[in-house]
């Protein structure tokens, strides 16, 4: 099942908290994160990177971002 975090519309630091909570549940795999500001995107990428997760894919859909991060054990 796809692991999804929808943080659209939420302001700092909620997108990071939600992403880190999801990372806590998963030792490895992929997480799809929906975001709508560049600030959130930068913050989430930075936080995920610090936990050893890498950006797998990033797509801009109209004004939103669809970020996929992944980690292999």
């Amino acid at each position, binding site marked *: 099942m796809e692991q999804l975090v929808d943080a*659209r*519309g*939420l*302001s*700092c*630091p*909620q997108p*990071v*908290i939600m992403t*880190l*909570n999801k990372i806590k549940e998963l030792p490895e795999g992929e997480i799809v994160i929906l975001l*709508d*500001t*560049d*600030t959130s995107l*930068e*913050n989430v990428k*930075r*936080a995920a990177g*610090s936990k050893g997760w890498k950006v797998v894919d990033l797509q801009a859909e109209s*004004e939103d971002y669809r970020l996929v991060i992944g980690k292999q054990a």
Partner: protein
Amino acid sequence: MKNVFATKWGIVIVGGGIGVLAALLQFWGNPANMGICVACFVRDMTGALGLHRASVVQYLRPEIVGFVLGSFAAAYLFKEFRPRSGSAPVTRFILGFFSMIGALVFLGCPWRALLRLAGGDGNALLGLLGLGVGIWIGTLFLKNGYNLGASRKTYTAAGWIFPAIMLALLVILLLNPQATGDPQSGVLYFSIEGPGSMHAPLIISLVVGLGIGFLAQRSRFCTMGAMRDLILFKQVHLFSGLLSFTAAAFVMNLLLKQFNPGFAGQPVAHTMHLWNFAGMVLAGLAFTLAGGCPGRQLFLSGEGDGDAAIFVVGMVMGAAFAHNFGLASSAAGATSGGITALIIGLVVCLLIGFTMREKVQA
């Protein structure tokens, strides 16, 4: 395009740049240890419009106008203008209101707390300690599901409203220029003594404000976020900007002979340690619950965030009450009314933190 300002070195350079400019603004005429103080300057603007009548703190600060319009320009230029609103506006208004009460009991926003420290004012240590404690309490709420909910995309014109208000204020300032020794010019009030009478030339204040607004929008510089991310995520990114801001202001103060260490007799400050501390506990908690320090709220307003704009309007209202009701401190210290308002503010912020939580999945 990669945003160089949001990199590790980007935030350090922006923080340092703002620190240098803050010290220079003081050198060019702004009040001592107040090159930039978002809370104080919003308060001064409130006074300039006659919404409070404390005659020593009335001046329509062009820096604030510049912060919003600079951010607005950067947001447009880099396609980050995102008109949005609808995330608990009244709550944000109240948080803005009480953050101002707390800041005016201490006498400064986080930026000024750091600038006071960089100028040698030891009382700032109590304020910064309080700020840290307030933010720490805020992070406990964040960890337990505190969330004001999502905003929604809205009309482009809605995102223009707050920058347009700032532009209108600038026009009003230009149409009602200050006359030497006159406390009033047309519809605006101007302090002829006290901190409100001390200011850099209009054009310098405006240009520096625009520059800082632009850089801060790009870098997401935020003093509250700096401490919050350090406490909550053990992240030093924004904190490195805060450190370079303080260090740069300190070095510039030494060079400009603006460094005067001590506790007693510091400019626009008092020595009541408990209330310096407690004022910033309230401010720090309110900023954390609202997601940004006063400066950051201005920059967010510039990029179309209507909820941040409501926070700023709350600050204006807080400033008006603070001076009309005698809640703001002075060099003589905190007032009994200010202490009462501070306690009410703490209770209100705690209630907001406890009651506005989504259920956390274990």
